């Protein structure tokens, strides 16, 4: 294969993009094409841009992102499954001037961690939540998640999710928007560059909400799991677009007035 020749000199080349400082150098353990990596990158870019790297404390979930604390170049802790919002609360209450965020999957946040996320929102806990909705339990081998679509085949819904016995997909943004303590609750998707850019803006606002002390902030990100969906990364991106976005409408579910004015 012929690779394009490098530029003769670099001095008339402007650096447009490079790996953010808020990520470490470690390669991740994510499967090729998994958008967990995209979400990490966006969070890191926002921390860099807002100058929060040295103030941030990140909380990794139990889920594929369990080692997130090794990839973020910030202080980090590992939560018990679903309890990241409670752990974040504990940290934020003793270090109110730090920037505390959780990074959680759909099993973590919407299944076992349902009570903790709702109460953190109800309390208006000044934390930021990055919620990766990939409609599956990635880490444990592809079991059904609360966000699994009707009829979707998983290892624990081998005949497809039967809503009559296994229930309906749970839409967390809609639920959390009901909480008075929530300042910012939106859903975005990572299925193409354009949506990724929008997701980044949302993440920015979710950290702005915290820095400004407005309350609880969450960005739900529709994300891929090529491995457990049995797809190539590109097929997975398209599956998000074609199947997940219709079931989980993108949009702003709650935006505090102070944030509506902000341009980021």
């Amino acid at each position, binding site marked *: 294969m012929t690779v394009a020749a490098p530029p003769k000199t670099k001095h008339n080349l402007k650096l447009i993009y490079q790996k953010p400082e808020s990520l470490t150098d470690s390669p991740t*353990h*994510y*499967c090729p094409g998994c958008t967990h990596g995209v979400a990490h990158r966006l969070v890191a870019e926002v921390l860099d841009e807002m100058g929060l790297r040295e103030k941030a404390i990140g909380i990794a979930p139990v889920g*594929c992102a*369990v*080692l997130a604390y090794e990839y973020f170049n910030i202080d980090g802790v590992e939560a018990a499954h679903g309890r990241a919002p409670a752990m974040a609360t504990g940290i934020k209450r003793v270090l109110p001037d730090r920037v505390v965020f959780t990074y959680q999957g759909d099993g973590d946040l919407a299944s076992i961690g349902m009570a903790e996320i709702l109460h953190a929102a109800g309390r208006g806990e000044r934390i930021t939540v990055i919620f990766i909705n990939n409609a599956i339990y990635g*880490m*444990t081998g592809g079991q059904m998640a609360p966000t699994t679509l009707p009829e979707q085949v998983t290892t624990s819904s081998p005949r497809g999710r039967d809503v009559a016995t296994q229930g309906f997909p749970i839409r967390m943004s809609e639920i959390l928007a009901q909480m008075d303590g929530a300042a910012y609750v939106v859903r975005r998707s990572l299925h193409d560059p354009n949506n990724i850019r929008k997701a980044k803006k949302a993440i920015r606002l979710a950290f702005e909400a915290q820095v400004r002390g407005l309350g609880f902030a969450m960005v739900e990100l529709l994300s891929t799991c090529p*491995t457990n969906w049995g797809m190539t990364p590109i097929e997975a991106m398209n599956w998000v677009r074609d199947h997940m976005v219709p079931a989980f409408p993108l949009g702003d579910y709650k935006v505090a007035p102070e944030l509506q004015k902000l341009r980021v």
Partner: protein
Amino acid sequence: MQTEILIAGFGGQGVLFAGQVLAYAAMDAGYEVTWFPSYGPEMRGGTANCTVIIADEEIGSPLVAHPKVLMALNAPSLDRFEPQVQPEGLIVANASLLSRPVERQDVTAITLKANHIAEELGDRRMANMVMLGALSTHLPVLTLEQIKAALRDHLPKRKHHLLEANYRALDTGAARARIVA
């Protein structure tokens, strides 16, 4: 009498399945058998290996520090496990993915380019069967025929169209197995 076979390679190379075929063959032959995977961390990638123990009495440990037989499907596996094989043991290594020969002098070593052979045969995923075929030539407890029968009897029906290809891979592996030490 007990034979321990350690099969190791990348995830995706069919390491666990190759072990299961041996286990089925052993069970059908009336032996006691255990198949023990090194199930990796709850996440993707990395290496995979499994230990198959075939014996004629109740099997104790499902793991052994020093297996009699090593079937190494890639370079890291050979590097890691070669030193552990019992003296007088057997190493079957996949030369397609090796950067060096087997070094131990006190074992029987068989190498063959399993990936290349599988590609020749038209299905790269058959490398594990090619290796098994090679292994069968020097495995004291099981014959190639028993392995084939195990495949036939235990492969799920919906995969039976693959039987022929598997047999061919096994046969070719057995035919091309070359003792190198």
